[in-house]
C-alpha cells in the first residue's frame, strides 16, 4: 500500500497483440518457473542465472531479489562468496540505472554490501575501492535526481558502515570532507536542495566524534548562505539551514539549569529544555562534598496531562521542573548542583545508542521564594550570548535588516529577524527585553498577513511574546508572590512550559479568556492557591486540578471539562470551585455534582460541601 505509482495495467492494442502474446507468455513463464523453484527451495547455479536474466528485464521484483539472497547464502553455489557478491554489485548497478526508486533494489544493494564487507577482510585498499564504487554510483544517480531519498539514505548507510570499520584503522579516510564536498557541489548547483543541506547539518553534528576532525568555519558558511538568500530570498531550504546555523546553534544546544528555588523546605530545579533526570548532588559554596538525592518530576505522572516520554528501557520521565529530595537541606544561599541526565544518543552509523548519561552542573543562588522574586527575574532575563555567538547574531541581523530594505515582504527574513533579536536580547535589561517582545508580537502579526496559510503559528508566537512580557512585569513588581499574575485574554492556546517554570511560586493566577485546551503546565505550578481558568476550551476532568496541593479556589467555568467522578483527593484547603457552564454539570442536581467532584474524598468530607446550581447558567461548589 505504500508503493509508488504503478503504471496502469494496459490491455495490449489489437495490432500488437500477437507479438505481445508471445513475449508475455515467455516472460510469465519465466517468472512463474522461478517462483516455483523458490517454493521448492531449489538452490543451484542455473536458478541464479535465471533470476539474473529475469531481473535484468524487470528489476522491480522483491521476491526474486529475496530468492537471490537465499541462493547466495545457501552454500550450494560453488563459487567463492566474494566473487558472487561482486557479480551482484554489477547486476544491481544495471538495475538501479533502470529503476532508481524501488525499495527492494536498494535493499538488496545494502544487503550485498553488508555481506561483502566482512569478505574484504581488513584490506584498506579493497574497502576504499568499495567506497569509491558506492560514491560513484550515488553521485551519478544524484545527477539524475538530486532529491532521490533512496539514494541519499543508501549513501548515508554505507558511510556509516565505513565509519564504524575505520575506527580501529591507523589511517582513517577523511569521510567528513567527502560528504562536505558533495554537499557543497550540489548546493552550488541548486541552492534549494534541502537534501544536501540536511547532509550538511548531520555532518556538523558529527564533528568532534570523528577522526580527523572536520570543522566548518561559521563566518564563511554564513557568508555563502547569505549569497543564496540574497539571490533567492523566498527559498525555504536555505532559510531552514540559516536557522539551524544561528538560533539552533548547529544542533549543539545542550540543556542547562535555568534556576533553582527553595519553597516550603523543598528544592526545585528547572531546565532550559525537557530532560530525563534521576540523581543529583547539591553542595554549599566552599564545600567539596555534596549531598546526594533523588529528583522527581513536579507534574505527577498519574496526571492525564503528563506528556513526557518514558524511555523504553527504564520507565523514566522527561520534564522541565524537578523536585530534589534530600535528607539534609543546604543553609547557604550559593550552591553548586550537579544533575545526571539521560541522553538518547546515536552511534556514528546512525543506529540508536544505548541510553547514556551526561552531567549538567549549575553554580548560583538557591533562590528563596519567600524573600523576593528579584533573582528569578534575573534568571528569566537569561544569559548573555557568548561573545562569538553574539557577533554572529549581530552580523546576521544587520544583513537581514539590509535584505528587508530591498525585500520588505520576505516573511522568512521577518521570522529570522525576530529570532535573532530575541537571541541578542537574552541577558539584557528588562526594558530592552520588553521592547523586543513588543517587536516580536508585531512581526508575528506582520508575518501572518504575508503568509496567511500559517496564520495560527504566528498567532501563537504573538501570544507567547505577550505572555513573556506579562510574566516579566509581574516578577519585576515589588511583591510578585503576594500579587496576581494576570495572563488573561492573551489568545494563548497553551501555557508555554518554558515560561510557566518562571512563574513557579505564584499563588494567584488568572488565565481567563484564553484558548487553553488543557490544564497543561498549570498543574506544575504547585504553589497555586487561587486559579481562574474561566472561558477557555479545556478538556478532561475538572478534578484533575486537585493535584495542586495548596488550592483554595478554582474557577473552571465555561470550559469543555467533564465530571466523571475521578478518584482524586481534593486539596485540604479547597473551599470554592466554580463549574458553571461545564458540559459535565448541565443536567445534574447539586448533590450529584458534589458527589462527582469529590469522588476521591470521604463521605464525611462531602457533607461539608454544598452546591448552588442553576442549570445551564451557574454551578458553584462551596465548603461550609
Amino acid at each position: 500500500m505504500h508503493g509508488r505509482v504503478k503504471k496502469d495495467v494496459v490491455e495490449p492494442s489489437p495490432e500488437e497483440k500477437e507479438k505481445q502474446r508471445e513475449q508475455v507468455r515467455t516472460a510469465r513463464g519465466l517468472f512463474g518457473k522461478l517462483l516455483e523453484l523458490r517454493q521448492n527451495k531449489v538452490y543451484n547455479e542455473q536458478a541464479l542465472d535465471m533470476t539474473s536474466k529475469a531481473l535484468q528485464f524487470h528489476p522491480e521484483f522483491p521476491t526474486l531479489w529475496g530468492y537471490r539472497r537465499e541462493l547466495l547464502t545457501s552454500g550450494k553455489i560453488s563459487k567463492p562468496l566474494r566473487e558472487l557478491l561482486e557479480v551482484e554489485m554489477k547486476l544491481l548497478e544495471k538495475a538501479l540505472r533502470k529503476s532508481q526508486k524501488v525499495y527492494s533494489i536498494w535493499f538488496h544493494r545494502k544487503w550485498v554490501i553488508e555481506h561483502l564487507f566482512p569478505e574484504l577482510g581488513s584490506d584498506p585498499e579493497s574497502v576504499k575501492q568499495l567506497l569509491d564504487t558506492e560514491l560513484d554510483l550515488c553521485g551519478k544517480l544524484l545527477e539524475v535526481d538530486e532529491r532521490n531519498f533512496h539514494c541519499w539514505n543508501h549513501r548515508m548507510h554505507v558511510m556509516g558502515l565505513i565509519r564504524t570499520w575505520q575506527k580501529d584503522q591507523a589511517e582513517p579516510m577523511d569521510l567528513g570532507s567527502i560528504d562536505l564536498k558533495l554537499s557543497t557541489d550540489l548546493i552550488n548547483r541548486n541552492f534549494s536542495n534541502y537534501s544536501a543541506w540536511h547532509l550538511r547539518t548531520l555532518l556538523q553534528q558529527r564533528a568532534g566524534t570523528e577522526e580527523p576532525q572536520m570543522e566548518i568555519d561559521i563566518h564563511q558558511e554564513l557568508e555563502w548562505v547569505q549569497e543564496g538568500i540574497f539571490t533567492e530570498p523566498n527559498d525555504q531550504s536555505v532559510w531552514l539551514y540559516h536557522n539551524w546555523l544561528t538560533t539552533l546553534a548547529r544542533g549543539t544546544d545542550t540543556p542547562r539549569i535555568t534556576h533553582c528555588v527553595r519553597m516550603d523546605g523543598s528544592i526545585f530545579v528547572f531546565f532550559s529544555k525537557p530532560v530525563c533526570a534521576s540523581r543529583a548532588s547539591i553542595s554549599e559554596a566552599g564545600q567539596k562534598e555534596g549531598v546526594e538525592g533523588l529528583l522527581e518530576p513536579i507534574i505527577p505522572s498519574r496526571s492525564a496531562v503528563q506528556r513526557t516520554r518514558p524511555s523504553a528501557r527504564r520507565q523514566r520521565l522527561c520534564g522541565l521542573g524537578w523536585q530534589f529530595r534530600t535528607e539534609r537541606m543546604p543553609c547557604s544561599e550559593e550552591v553548586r548542583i550537579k544533575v545526571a541526565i539521560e541522553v538518547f544518543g546515536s552511534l556514528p552509523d546512525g543506529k540508536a545508542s544505548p541510553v547514556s548519561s551526561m552531567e549538567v552542573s549549575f553554580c548560583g543562588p538557591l533562590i528563596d521564594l519567600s524573600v523576593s522574586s528579584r533573582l528569578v527575574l534575573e534568571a528569566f532575563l537569561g544569559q548573555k550570548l557568548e561573545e562569538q555567538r553574539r557577533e554572529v547574531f549581530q552580523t546576521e541581523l544587520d544583513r537581514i535588516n539590509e535584505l528587508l530594505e530591498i525585500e520588505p515582504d520576505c516573511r522568512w527574513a521577518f521570522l529570522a529577524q525576530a529570532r535573532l533579536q530575541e537571541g541578542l536580547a537574552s541577558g539584557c535589561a528588562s526594558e530592552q527585553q520588553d521592547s523586543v517582545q513588543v517587536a516580536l508580537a508585531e512581526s508575528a502579526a506582520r508575518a501572518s498577513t504575508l503568509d496567511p496559510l500559517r496564520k495560527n503559528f504566528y498567532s501563537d508566537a504573538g501570544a507567547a511574546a505577550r505572555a513573556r512580557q506579562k510574566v516579566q512585569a509581574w516578577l519585576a513588581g515589588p511583591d510578585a508572590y503576594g500579587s496576581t499574575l494576570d495572563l488573561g485574554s492573551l489568545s494563548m492556546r497553551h501555557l508555554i512550559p518554558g515560561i510557566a517554570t518562571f512563574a513557579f511560586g505564584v499563588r494567584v493566577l488568572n488565565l481567563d479568556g484564553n484558548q487553553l485546551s488543557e490544564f497543561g503546565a498549570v498543574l506544575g505550578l504547585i504553589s497555586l492557591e487561587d486559579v481562574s481558568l474561566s472561558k477557555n476550551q479545556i478538556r478532561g476532568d475538572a478534578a484533575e486540578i486537585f493535584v495542586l496541593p495548596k488550592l483554595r479556589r478554582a474557577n473552571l467555568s465555561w470550559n469543555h471539562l467533564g465530571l466523571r467522578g475521578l478518584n482524586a483527593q481534593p486539596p485540604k484547603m479547597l473551599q470554592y470551585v466554580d463549574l458553571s457552564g461545564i458540559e459535565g454539570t448541565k443536567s445534574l442536581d447539586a448533590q450529584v455534582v458534589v458527589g462527582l467532584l469529590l469522588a476521591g474524598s470521604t463521605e464525611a468530607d462531602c457533607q461539608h460541601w454544598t452546591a448552588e446550581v442553576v442549570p445551564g447558567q451557574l454551578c458553584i461548589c462551596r465548603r461550609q
Partner: protein
Amino acid sequence: MAVERAQKHLQYLDAFLARGFKTLHYLDQLRAQLSESETTGLFGLGPEKSGKLLAACVAETSLLSALYWVICAGALLGRNLSSEDSESLSQVLHLVRSCRKGAGFAPHPSHEPDLLSTVSAVQLSVILKRPEILEDGTGATRKYILSLQLPDGSFTSRIGSAEEGDCRFTFAALCGLSLLREPGAKDGGELEEVRDPAMVAEWLLNCQNLDGGFGCRPKGECESHAGHTFCCLAGLSLLQMIPRMTHRSRQRLIRWLGSRQCEGGGINGRPGKKADACYTWWTLASAKLILSSEGSSPSATLADLFDLPALEKFLEECASPDGGVAPHPGDDPDPFHTFFGLSGWSLAAHAQADASTKGWLQDMHASLVLPVGLTGTV
C-alpha cells in the same frame, strides 16, 4: 454537484477495475497454455521490448494493494460493495482468496506472501465485510504478522529475506494487528500482543529528525519525508504512544507539517518539492493524529494548520473531468493518487464547518486508513 462528482470518480474506478480483471484473465490464459520448454524463450528478446510488456506482469507485485486502493476509494465515495450481488464483488473475493498462501497473503496468486499484501487483504476483508476470506478463526494471519517483528522492535516485509526494519512495514504491521484484534479488546489499551510495544514506540520516535519530520529509519540516517512521517505517527497512534512525544518534538512536527502547504494550495512531501495530490493524505492524516492525540491542543484543528479551501481548490485541479485524481494538475489520473488524493480530500472536507462540502466523501480513519464507518468490523 457533489453527487455527480462522486459518480465520475466511481466510473473511473469501475473502468479501471474491469480493465484490470480483463488483463489478469488474459495473462492467466497465456499461463495455462504455457509449456515448460518455452520458459527460456524470453532470453532471446531485447530488454527494451520485453520491459514494456513485463510491466503488466510486474504490476502483479503490488496487485492486492492496488485492489485495496481501488475498493477503498469506492467505499470512501459511499459505495457499499459488500451488499451488492455483482460480478465484480465475486471477482474481487475470488482474487483475494486465491492470494492466500498459508497464513499470509501474496500480492498475486502466483507470488509469495508478504506483509503489505497481507495487510491489504485484512483491509479488504473489513471493507467487504468478509472476515472469512482471511482465515479459519485460528488467528493465523495475526501470527503471521507477528512473526515479521525484528529484534529491535521494528517489522520486516517477508519471512527469511533478512530485510531490515523500516517504518512503512512497522506501521503496516501495527495497522493489520489493530484490525485483527479480538472484538473485546477493541479500542482498549496498547497492542499487547506485539513484543515490547515500548521498544517499538522508541524505534518509531527515533525516526524523528531535528527539523520535526520523520525519516524512514531511526536517528538522522534518513531525511524527513511526509509519507514516512505518516507511518511513524500512525504507528505510534495505534500503539497509543503519541503521548510519549515531548512537547518540543510535537511543536516541531506541527510546524514541519504546516510548512508542507505550498503556494497554490497543494501539499508537498519535503521542503522544496512540488505539491502532489497524494501528500494531502500523508500530511493531513499526520496532522490530524498529532492534533487529536491526548496532550496536544485539541482546540487546534486541521483548519488551523492549513488553508483548506486553497487545498481543495488544488485537488479540484488535480481531479480529471472524467474521474480519478492525478498527482499534479493536468497529469493523467491513476488509482494510487485517486485513493490518497480523495482520502486526504475527505480529511480536509470533514475538518471544515461547512457541512455541504462533506457529503460526497466518507470520513477517513487517520491511522487505519479506512472509512470511519467501517472500522472495527473484522
